[in-house]
């Protein structure tokens, strides 16, 4: 009953074009922000941050990035893991080369580096489409992982071939390294997630976003209304890789602290993020969050119920967990091929009329 447009009149096009046109939605969004910023940091501990919040937030950024490329611009990519690795190694090189600069700049700059690399690997998209483009980006994935494995300069000639994040601070507070407190890394990631989601939303509602969607829906018609396919596709690759690079940098520096490229940024990672956006909903920012939440929370939840509540042996639970998650993915895709975001949209449409649908 609260959820409706009636009585909430828009008197300008600016009002009509806002992100949350319905009042209830707007207040809900502010409430979520307030809880995330002002309540959660005081109550969380290490377990919550490392098991749930950090992976959720970081994968959300990656999912938003990939969603811009696949969901909005229609260019299939399987190179996400490789681009995350570029972000991670870029961040590592910057952190070790400029220790006095604060970590926020390193993370953003790592995103910038990834954007440039993304554009380079996006060049084939001008000639090829669909599955063939997916294979071309797969090549990027393998090449990048190989590069970071084989060229010692990238891991500063360390004996193990790993990279590990040195201690870095922001405004005097530790963000990376072993002495970081849970709330600091959480808040740092949350702010970046907020920034990325906001930028992604701005881009997708304006003319840049329309260019991407025009290319996605029908590239011939897009050209005839004056969209230059070259700039549209490459800008999608750049923006997408920028976000993916940021998420890679955070994944390495804030979340894991030390990574080995083949393990952390292998092909599984590309598929994981792709699953997130397919389950969450292609072409939807909310879907990116929903998909990331689903893929991160589901295993944790299942493990807790199976091992914690039902008392099953850990190894059996681990296997069953895979089967259940797989089954759930299939069920979801059959029930709603357009993902959680579409379910959410339908619920909202129903809610708008509830409780008097006629």
């Amino acid at each position, binding site marked *: 009953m609260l959820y409706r447009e009636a009585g909430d009149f828009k008197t300008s096009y600016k009002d009509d074009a806002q992100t949350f046109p319905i009042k209830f939605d707007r207040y809900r969004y502010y409430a979520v922000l307030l809880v995330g910023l002002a309540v959660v940091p005081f109550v969380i501990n290490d377990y919550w941050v490392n098991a749930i919040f950090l992976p959720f937030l970081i994968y959300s950024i990656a999912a938003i990035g990939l969603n811009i490329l696949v969901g909005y611009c229609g260019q299939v990519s399987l190179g996400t893991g490789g681009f995350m690795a570029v972000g991670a190694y870029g961040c590592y090189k910057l952190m070790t080369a400029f220790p006095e600069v604060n970590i926020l700049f390193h993370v953003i700059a790592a995103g910038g580096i990834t954007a440039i690399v993304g554009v380079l690997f996006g060049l084939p998209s001008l000639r090829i489409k669909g599955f063939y483009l997916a294979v071309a980006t797969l090549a990027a994935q393998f090449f990048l992982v190989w590069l970071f494995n084989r060229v010692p300069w990238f891991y500063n000639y360390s004996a193990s071939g790993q990279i590990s994040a040195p201690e870095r601070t922001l405004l005097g507070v530790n963000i990376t390294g072993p002495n970081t407190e849970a709330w600091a890394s959480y808040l740092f990631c949350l702010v970046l997630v907020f920034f990325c989601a906001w930028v992604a939303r*701005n*881009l997708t509602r304006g*003319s840049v976003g*329309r260019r991407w*969607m*025009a290319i996605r829906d*029908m590239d011939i018609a897009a050209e*005839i*209304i004056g969209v230059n396919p070259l700039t549209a596709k490459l800008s999608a690759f750049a923006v997408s890789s920028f976000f993916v690079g940021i998420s890679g940098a955070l994944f390495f520096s804030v979340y894991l602290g030390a990574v080995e490229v083949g393990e952390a940024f292998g092909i599984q990672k590309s598929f994981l993020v792709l699953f997130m956006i397919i389950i969450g909903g292609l072409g939807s920012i909310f879907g990116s969050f929903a998909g990331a939440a689903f893929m991160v929370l589901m295993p944790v939840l299942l493990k807790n119920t199976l091992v914690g509540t039902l008392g099953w042996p850990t190894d059996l639970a681990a296997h069953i967990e895979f089967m259940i998650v797989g089954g759930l993915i299939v069920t979801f895709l059959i029930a709603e091929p357009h993902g959680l975001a579409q379910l959410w949209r339908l619920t909202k449409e129903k809610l708008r009329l509830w409780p008097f649908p006629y």
Partner: protein
Amino acid sequence: MLDASEGYVTPDGRQIGGVMMEMRNITLRFGGVVAIKDISFDIREGEIRAIIGPNGAGKSSMLNVISGFYNPQEGEVWFRGAKRPPMKPFQVARQGIARTFQNIALFEGMTVLDNVMTGRLTQMRSSIWAQALWWGSAEREETENRAHVERVIDFLEIQSIRKTPVGRLPYGLKKRVELARALAAEPKLLLLDEPMAGMNVEEKEDMSRFILDVNDEFGTTIALIEHDMGVVMDLSDRVVVMDYGKKIGDGTPDEVRKNQAVIDAYLGVAHD
């Protein structure tokens, strides 16, 4: 024939201006197949120009040459007094030529409003940085263009479906939305590829009215391909008739109707 520099006055009293677009000796080949053979004609400011002909005559190819999908092997395209170099379709669009397609080419995943807004993309030039932060020019531009798009939406009477995803619309409305998208670009020359294909009589009447209104209110020059002879003869000021890639007739509807070559092409010739 008509003088190239001056216009003429139509029977219903509209003043037609000078030459806007001129095709000079266009020849288009696909390998060994000659789709268009040495065709010349012009389109004048403010005119409704029809291209007709039997199936496979090369009408759509001609439109594709104008809109830049094909570059002819021979011949020149002149637009607004200048020879046009070979161009990509998006460059042609920026020159002020918009078109609709025979098979609807809308963006199915977007709403009607977003689809029509895409028609304004040639006018929207705020940088990606401004848009990322939704700063100054980005927001202003969005609102200004939205106001323009709303005028087009009012004009074509599709206000009620503004926020509906295009995929859910029936065929006739999709055609109208496509016209709206083309009009949103404020084209100087509007190309319509079979705007009435597959419509019933009422929808055809609506569409004809819109075409006349567009020409009348915005002064847009229109070139259209259509198979419904009644519609063509009523709407257009001058008609080009094509058959097997060649031009067999050109003139006012009345002249074309009396042209023996045209009658032969449409009705066939007795072999005796």
